[in-house]
């Protein structure tokens, strides 16, 4: 087998960047044809820049100081134009919304081959082949805008594959997807591997890296480790220092001093059985009850139908939320999570049934008043940030409520302190990082001091480090007495932070209970196409009742 990619001492510094720090520093690497490389690292580690350096976006599209040499299938990238590289390297980006620009699915796939001046019947052949490849053959005539997230990302992959590049690079292709969408995309990646294509994927989830031929671990523009997953993914201090979530099975085994470095739950079970490390027991779920606390929000037999659609987005939903609870609502996109949450602050009005806030129908509460009772943080902070300073942004809802300048000042300072952004008052929100903008959005809702705070996907798009700090912040809020409700796709987030988990499917509540009990019901979760995080899958088999690594370790030590 030949060498597909060879990188020699590559360094790059963006022109016009906020800092003059190089984005890439002395990168070396070699990828054999037909192998699978997973790149991991914290936000800003240089993963995306490295992807762009493979198809000449760096240094052609992004200008800057470029030294070193990158060769892909015999072509030196630094000397080629992006359009020329498109025959050798396909690039799929994280944001599926921003890489589709055609008015129909088949034209999206036709676009690349058209640029290559291929004859019409060859284009036809490629559309057929690659739409079938990603499982979208039935959707040929659809509008790309009408597809689900997973379908859009698969379409983006097909549209790149249609150029038939020997190397495919995917920059966080699953970050913005729900679990089903993620599964769909990873299945496509798997098929590509079987076809012996060279594949580079950037991903945050250690589970993706398990099957890779090589893991490239990046930190601050450098590659700090390069090698097979079994070597790289077991070096926990190194992973932590790169802001990458370590595989919890490895972490568990290391903490207990057990032999072996299992990367998957299956390996872990095999190792435990082989060495007789612990005896599985039936799971005893502790019944921590919250029933004593007063009910703050009540959803009574609610149906909801969107005006433009025929199907019920919610049907017969009943839910009681008590003061001071920490609830995670989980389920696939389209299962009704967000629709349900938007009923809680009256953004949507039920078609049938009633939503009560402290016994009062939400539909009767005025807008400015409900903002002070139930705060709602939208998924994408960029959907609400508009002001020139953080101070103005965070104080917006207070100004709308007609408060005086002094009170606003105090409340803003308080909210910023809670989210850890004290001293940012005069910053321009747009120039902050994604994680910081997310915090500004949270602060702007907190400033109104709502008893209940709802967050839609608070950790999506953040790296592991920022996910942790966001969730720690919510935990602190919860300790201060707020009722916290999150909508999330991330199972470990739900497991580690929420007290109670509500699983939704097709507009109904499929499962509702204390977190540990909910994650014990693997079969019911599977109906919603969800799986507990690896630690709890292992815990379900072992019969441990802990939700975090430390709890499980302690429990197993005590046995």
């Amino acid at each position: 087998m030949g060498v597909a990619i060879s990188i020699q001492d590559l360094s790059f510094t963006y022109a016009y960047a906020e800092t003059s720090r190089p984005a890439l520093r002395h990168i070396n690497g070699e990828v054999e044809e037909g192998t699978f490389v997973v790149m991991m690292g914290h936000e800003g580690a240089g993963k995306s820049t490295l992807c762009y350096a493979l198809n000449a976006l760096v240094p052609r599209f992004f200008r800057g100081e470029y030294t070193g040499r990158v060769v892909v299938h015999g072509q030196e990238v630094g000397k080629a134009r992006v359009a020329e590289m498109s025959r050798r390297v396909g690039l799929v980006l994280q944001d599926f919304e921003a890489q589709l620009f055609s008015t129909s699915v088949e034209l999206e796939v036709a676009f690349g081959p058209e640029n290559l001046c291929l004859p019409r019947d060859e284009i036809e052949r490629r559309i057929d082949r690659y739409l079938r490849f990603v499982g979208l053959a039935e959707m040929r005539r659809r509008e790309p805008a009408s597809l689900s997230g997973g379908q859009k990302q698969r379409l983006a992959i097909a549209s790149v594959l249609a150029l038939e590049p020997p190397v495919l690079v995917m920059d966080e292709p699953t970050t913005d997807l729900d679990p089903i969408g993620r599964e769909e995309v990873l299945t496509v990646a798997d098929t590509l591997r079987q076809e012996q294509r060279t594949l580079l994927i950037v991903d945050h989830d250690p589970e993706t890296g398990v099957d890779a031929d090589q893991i490239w671990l990046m930190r601050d523009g450098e590659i700090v480790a390069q090698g097979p997953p079994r070597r790289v993914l077991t070096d926990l201090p190194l992973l932590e220092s790169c802001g990458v979530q370590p595989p919890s099975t490895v972490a568990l085994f290391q903490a207990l001093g057990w032999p072996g470095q299992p990367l998957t739950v299956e390996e872990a079970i095999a190792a435990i059985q082989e060495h007789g490390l612990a005896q599985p027991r039936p799971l005893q779920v502790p019944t921590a009850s919250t029933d004593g606390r007063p009910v703050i929000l009540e959803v009574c037999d609610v149906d909801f139908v969107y005006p433009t659609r025929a199907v019920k987005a919610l049907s017969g939903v009943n839910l009681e939320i008590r003061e001071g609870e920490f609830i995670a609502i989980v389920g696939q996109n389209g299962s009704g999570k967000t629709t349900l949450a938007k009923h809680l602050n009256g953004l949507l009005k039920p078609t049938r049934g009633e939503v009560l806030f402290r016994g009062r129908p939400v539909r009767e509460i005025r807008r400015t008043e409900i903002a002070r009772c139930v705060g709602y943080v939208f998924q994408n902070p960029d959907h609400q940030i508009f002001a020139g300073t953080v101070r103005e942004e965070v104080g917006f809802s207070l100004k709308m409520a007609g408060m005086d300048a002094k009170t606003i000042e105090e409340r803003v300072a308080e909210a910023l302190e809670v989210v850890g952004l004290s001293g940012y008052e005069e910053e321009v929100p747009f120039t902050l990082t994604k994680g910081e903008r997310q915090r500004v959005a949270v602060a702007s809702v907190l400033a109104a001091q709502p008893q209940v705070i709802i967050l839609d996907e608070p950790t999506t798009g953040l790296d592991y480090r920022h996910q942790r700090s966001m969730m720690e912040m919510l935990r602190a809020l919860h300790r201060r007495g707020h009722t916290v409700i999150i909508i999330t796709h991330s199972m470990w987030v739900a497991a580690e932070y929420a007290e109670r988990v509500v699983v939704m499917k097709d507009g109904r509540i499929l499962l509702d209970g204390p977190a540990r009990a909910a994650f014990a019901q693997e079969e019911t979760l599977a109906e919603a196409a969800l799986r507990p995080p690896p630690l709890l899958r292992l815990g379900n088999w072992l019969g441990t009742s802990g939700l975090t690594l430390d709890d499980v370790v302690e429990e197993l030590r005590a046995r």
Partner: protein
Amino acid sequence: MKAAFTMWKNTRMIILVAVCAAIYAAALIAFKTAIPLIPGITEVRVANIFPMVFSLLFGPAAAWGSAIGNLIGDIFGGTLGLGSIFGFVGNFLLGYLPYAMWTTLKPIADGERELALGNWRAWVLYILLALISSAACGVVIAMWLEVLGLVPYPVLVTIITVNDTFGSLIGGLLLLAVYGVVRRQLRLVWWDVMEPEDIGKPAAGVLGAWLVVIGALAGWILGAYILSGQALIVGVITTVLILLGAVLM
């Protein structure tokens, strides 16, 4: 005017055309009935806060973007017709004139592309250009609809002028909020995106700019209030002046 044609060589400029068009069209559709002026007849086109902002940031991409965006607004609104032709031209001007006149309307303009938004002089120019570009857009569209016999000139020219001026003035707040981000963070202002040799120099910029000023104001005030009986002739002559001025810049 050269940049308005050479921009089609530049991928980012082409996409800016599409993005401007899509925002404008989306806003046209979304806010179609937000604030009725005369209920059932015309509304404040809230979407009109965008074209002038686009123009000063994205230059020629804004001209084509506003034109295409308005056309798409017609398509989705179901009002695609012969009137759409000059709707295209009028909205092109709305996106073209502000950036073209920003450097050429001397001595009010100082010739710098950079928007010195902290400076009162920049805002005097902004307000003036808001009025001129809106009136130019109004004259061109009203002239054509009068020719087609769809809507009387004097009514429409005033509605469009007032409406678009109002929109562009509100747009000033938008510009203030986004200029820094677009200029320094996204680096998408048109004179950064385009190659200097593609931008070119105006043929007779100052003359062109003043022709547009005369054409736009005369077309509106004479046509609507003083010579409304001869509205068609006034409309045609001033349209020619405006288009000639536009080409010279």
